[in-house]
């Protein structure tokens, strides 16, 4: 399992659009992908659960990935954060 702390980059936090992008990216990988904020952990492949995490811009979230392609999955999702979820 690998873990990484990330800072939420979308201006309005993890709302529908960025959550959707997160799921699109997660579902490309076999590994189990969990996202954790303030002790609440949700499935990174469920858009509803991600939205319920209520992760605002600047919030610290922990990404936990377990599985055969965990390294690739981490790199791909981290890229989303760096690209600020391609916001305009």
């Amino acid at each position: 399992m690998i873990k990484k702390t990330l800072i939420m980059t979308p201006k309005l936090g993890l709302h529908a659009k960025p959550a959707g992008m997160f799921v699109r990216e997660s579902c490309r990988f076999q590994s189990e992908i969990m996202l954790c904020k303030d002790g609440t952990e949700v499935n990174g492949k469920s858009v509803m659960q991600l939205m319920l995490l209520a992760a605002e811009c600047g919030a610290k979230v922990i990404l936990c990935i377990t599985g055969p392609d965990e390294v690739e999955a981490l790199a791909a999702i981290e890229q989303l954060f760096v690209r600020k979820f391609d916001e305009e």
Partner: protein
Amino acid sequence: MIIIKGVGASPGIAIGKAYVLEDEEIVVTRTEIPRDRLRAEVARFRAAQKATHRDLDNAEAKVLKLLGKNHAKLIDAHRLILRDTLITKDVPQRILGEGVNAEFALSEALEAVNQQFEKLEDEFFRERRHDLFDVGKRLLAHLLKHTRRSLGDIDHPCVLIARNLLPSDTINLKESRILGFATDLGGKTSHTAILAQSLEIPAVVGLSDVSRRVKSGDMVILDGEQGLVIISPTAEAVAKYEKAQAQEVKAERELESLKGLPAVTLDDKRFQLEVNLDTPEEMKSVLALQVDGIGLFRTEYLYLNRTTSPTEEEQTKAYMAVAKAMAPRPVVIRTADIGGDRLTQMGIEGPKNETNPFMGLRGVRLFLRHLDLFKTQLRAILRATVKGNVKIMIPMVSAVAEVQAVRRLLAQAVAELQAEGVETPKNVELGIMVEIPSAAVLLDAFLPHCDFVSVGTNDLIQYTLAVDRVNENVTHLYDPFHPAVLRLIQHVVTVAHRAGKWVGVCGEMTSDPHAVPLLVGMGCDSLSISPRMFLRVKETVRNLRAAVMAKLVAKAVTCSDSEEIRRLMREQGL
């Protein structure tokens, strides 16, 4: 006449007859399904899901065409909601487990999630549940073979009134002939509000019961700026708003007509009118404004919210794009003005928990401690210079030695790039931000080491008056019209001009049409304005006489407080 106050979601005025979209109260009843027909019930649900997928495909195509790729991502998120285990697993489980109809199972599943949203403290995230309802409503409509009334059926211009508008409804608004809309529910940050702003449709939300108080055909006025809905307005109110509407259009058109005209005063003194750029994404609107240059390209955005520092390649690409788009007009790139907290986020050892970060290790102070980061940025800027007219500006300079150190580092970067065979100019203009009083007072000592100066008014005011702008106990003391501030700026202009160097001003003072006359009177060469205020400031400059303003400044700097200065300006009709 009744006036209801709500939340202005999208600015503008709409006047017209109301069209009330009756709330589609879809009544869901619980029906028990015989065991042998449960499989068929699940299949019926799956069919509705498929039909909803088709709806979303159509909606996506429409949004792509109307609003572009970024907004289309919302529809993709809706597609993922439809595919979420909540819907794909939970609903069939409820049908099979409880032996109930699909409609009931779905509404129960939606309600369970709604309750979780209700618990969220953050209003913005609580509002996100409308995305779920949007998908849920589409599904229910298919299950009930309910054909939703389409807004496209509206054939005359009208003001739409509804209990709630789902994002998918809003998308259809542009094609229909809707002047504006008002809803009972919703907040400023809901998708519906954001879409209304992008579509430039006036909108007021959060009116609680407007949909019950207005009947179709009633005359209404919608004020998207103030967040008001006026039902059955008096003739005077209509006349007043019609006038305001016409003025809005006229003012907009007048400002538009200033595009491309020089920023020259009535007595023929020309000013360089530039804009501040926070991220390259704003370039499209900046280019449309036909500005004289970028007076302050803030590069902090490159360092924000990330776990690694930006590479030379990444930076070069960003700077080149801006330089190329503006060429031959100048682009002043300011090296990053970041504090120590940014470094720690990027995994670099930096100062933590400074008690006074505004007076701490930030700007050039920080970069002179992290020469690798500094040199990477300087190299990227140097590489971008070949694409246009690029200048470099250093923030937070308080001592001459700092400028000398930057000069040395810059020379080193040039030598390195040349040795590597990278095309770079021999000479690139280097300027300093004058935002710390010591740099303003001692400017003559700094000038031999730099090519230009730019007054950063926000910090100069903050440091001169010792006022932390975010401290509510002292914000009232933050005063751009303080005579001490004006004297300092005037001193900078006089000393720099004596040495033959040009002076720019950036910061919020340039975007305040009341302060601009003073800057014009002092003879600043260029003003860097926030894009939003650019045309308005140009209008101000074009209506001034520089010689008269110079006399005004001469008087202003002898005043003992800002009230006296404001009075002087009022006397001149400014």
